[in-house]
């Protein structure tokens, strides 16, 4: 019988598939399922990818005019999802173990498809335009957009998701050439999770991808611009939106990179300030006076700075008082820091909560791939929690005094037109 410790301490087995490709496996034989994630080392933050419409090239490759590839996936009861993140493009596959060979044969055909559906590309362009118009009334998008505009220059890839999208590239030959190059770049990984052995995984990975023989073009690595310095950023940004009956507030600063040595202190501080249902922000803004339904903190985390937000919302006529309360909570937090009880509670939460992303082999593989993508050592996130547990209240409060300095923050408001 398998015991819980098996997944809590699951090992990721790795091997070399070929000169440009690694393999990885997390075994779990509880259900007859296999997850395969293939990552290619080029993402939306790459200038080359943007110049060559690589996201379109990668994500439309399973759309042939007769939908033959997708129909094969449906017949196999397999899912093949194509996506492009900031630093990598990925093909994510899920199927029953008995269908693995046929599903991987299909995956190879998708990666070799040269018959993109031109009508679908034109249709997707119209849909993209309409969806962009739909963003006008999406308050969460609009506040994030305003935040991104405060911190990032127009050409910075961290801002691009919030600006009007480029048209879908409709030149099939160009799309095929781009896709063919990006999937042949060295630095690929094929990750398996689920009901297969190391021998089976190695056999499945062999010959799955074309040779990684592409020369790495210029501009393939992420290229980010300098953040707008706190002193040059507007301290306030108001967005007016039609039909709003509430105001939405985001109190923003640049986030701490995940590999910053101060990150363990941040984990504790952020949990106490806005990381749970009885955090400082939730208690002050929701539980104490019913000003809001939600309050908390969030970040678009990475090993480079992005935006860190403390946010809330309330009825329009309560805008002034809740903003004063939000700023008040932040000021007290910065000046007084946290207590020993809060420190201990945060550590207990962080340690206990680790079990939640170890419920399946697929989750463990995802975490491993993220660490690899960000060039972080394996087990990095667990190590951060252990480091946090060694910090004293004094050390954490010293960090809080510096990081939560009000001079570093700007406020974004979405208000009724």
């Amino acid at each position, binding site marked *: *019988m398998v015991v819980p410790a098996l997944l809590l301490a699951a090992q990721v087995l790795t091997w070399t598939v070929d000169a440009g490709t690694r393999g990885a496996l997390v075994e779990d034989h509880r259900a007859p399922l296999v997850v395969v994630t293939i990552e290619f080392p080029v993402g939306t933050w790459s200038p080359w990818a943007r110049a060559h419409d690589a996201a379109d090239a990668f994500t439309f490759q399973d759309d042939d005019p007769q939908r033959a590839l997708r129909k094969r996936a449906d017949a196999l*009861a397999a899912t093949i999802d194509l996506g492009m993140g900031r630093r990598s493009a990925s093909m994510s596959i899920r199927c029953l173990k008995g269908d693995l060979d046929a599903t991987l044969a299909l995956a190879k055909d998708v990666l070799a498809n040269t018959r993109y559906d031109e009508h679908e590309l034109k249709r997707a362009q119209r849909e993209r335009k309409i969806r962009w118009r739909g963003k006008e009334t999406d308050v969460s998008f609009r506040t994030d957009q305003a935040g991104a505009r405060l911190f990032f220059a127009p050409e910075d890839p961290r801002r691009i998701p919030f600006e009007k999208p480029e048209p879908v590239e409709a030149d099939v030959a160009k799309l095929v050439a781009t896709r063919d190059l990006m999937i042949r770049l060295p630095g690929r990984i094929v990750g398996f999770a689920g009901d297969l052995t190391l021998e089976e995984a190695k056999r499945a990975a062999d010959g799955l991808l074309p040779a990684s023989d592409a020369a790495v073009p210029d501009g393939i690595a992420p290229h980010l611009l300098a953040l707008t310095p706190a002193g040059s950023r507007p301290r306030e940004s108001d967005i007016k939106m039609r039909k709003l009956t509430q105001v939405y507030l985001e109190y923003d600063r640049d986030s701490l990179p995940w590999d910053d040595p101060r990150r363990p202190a941040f984990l504790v501080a952020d949990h106490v300030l806005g990381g749970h249902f009885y955090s400082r922000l939730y208690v002050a803004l929701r539980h104490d006076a019913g000003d809001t339904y939600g309050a908390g903190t969030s970040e678009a985390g990475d090993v480079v700075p992005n935006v860190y937000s403390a946010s809330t919302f309330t009825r329009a006529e309560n805008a002034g008082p809740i903003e004063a309360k939000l700023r008040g909570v932040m000021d007290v937090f910065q000046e007084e820091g946290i207590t020993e009880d809060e420190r201990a509670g945060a550590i207990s939460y962080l340690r*206990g909560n680790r079990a939640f992303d170890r419920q399946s082999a697929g989750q463990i593989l995802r975490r491993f791939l993220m660490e690899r993508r960000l060039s972080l050592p394996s087990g990095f996130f667990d190590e951060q929690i252990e480091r946090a547990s060694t910090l004293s209240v004094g050390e954490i409060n010293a960090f809080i005094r510096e990081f939560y300095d009000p001079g570093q923050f700007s406020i974004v408001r979405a208000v009724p037109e």
Partner: protein
Amino acid sequence: MLTALILATLVQTTLPNGLEVTILPDPTMPVVATQVWYHVGSANEGKDNRGLAHLFEHLMFGATTTSERGGYGKFVTGVGGEENAYTSPDETIYVSEVPPGAENEILRREADRMRNLSLTRENLDNEKKIVTEELRLRTENDPTSRLLVQAQRALLGEHPYAYDPSGSKADVAAATVASCQAFYDAYYHPNNAHLVVVGPVDPERLMATVRETFGPLPRGGTTPADVPPLYGWPFPSGFELKEDIPPVEVAIIGAPLPQADAKDAMAIEVLLEVLAGGSVDPLHEIVVARRKKAIEAGIETIALRRGGGIVFYSASLPYRRKTTAMRVLDEAIQELDRMEWLTDQTLAAGKRRLIEDDADAFLFAAERAEDIGTSRWWLGDTRFAFDRASRISAVTRDEVAAAWRAYVRDAKWIRVYVKPEHVPAYIRMFGWLYPLFS
């Protein structure tokens, strides 16, 4: 094999006070999921207490006679767990997931708040403000939600499913301590609840905790009247809606489906999976890819305990006439009636997709607990959570075809047309050129 071993340790019982208990021990899981299903939802409310099921969900995190306000949540967070609650038209569910070892305290606290809640004016007033902000967030300030609330009312009339589970601002304002206490006394009793625990637990010891904590609670309250089935309800033949959506017009044709425990429910589930569960939507292929009559089209389904629905929709730039859009949909449904989408191969694939989804859910304690709770309340027996694969496999092609004919082809259709409030001038002027270039 592993499934058989786990099922051999399944504990199912009903306490003398009527509380149904299901414990599924699984030592392979790293977290324990507990769920308390109260068999009362927003559809059980009347004109005088609308919105109370959801408001009450909030109040259940208040103080009890033995615990401070927020004590439950603080305990769960303190051990690294997650907790929440959901109100649907059919039930209210209190869920938690905690690392092993914390489940005994969860059970003690769930039993405590089942009967010992302290309802105070101060807490009620605060929660009313919070719920009102939630309503503003979820429905007032989101165009799609505004549209859905309008559609629900126009479609369902006086059916109990017509009302948003969160109620309206007026409903929330009308709640009093007395009305909340009456709701609590009527429905929050062991004999109207089902406790489900899944994870690495010792079933005998946990059952002893269940008896110790829930056992002393008295049977009481009333059983809510059952909700009328959707199938057979007198729906309108159609209506139009307008909302601040992107500049597209949406044509919708829909029909009701029978309740979750209907004799042919499994055939209907397989039908919907074969028809609409894959990555290639047959309606999209006809209307968008082949006939080029819309920008998007597809088939969606909805499931509630006392019935569901199937919806065929298409979205076009706002230059096409409503009658044309509806005719295109009618023609596409007639084409689907040839049942080229239903072959032995597509049937087998649809069944395998359902079985694969179940296999994935099998790995997560919370998902398995939800399957068990749903099977008990929606289908009438927890065993349906464990024999789904064999029931899916048993469905025949003839049964799927019969379900199509009965519930789709021969249905009395409801037609809905949605228009945007704002259409940019360039689309109004030049949108008709779109087909010339597609």
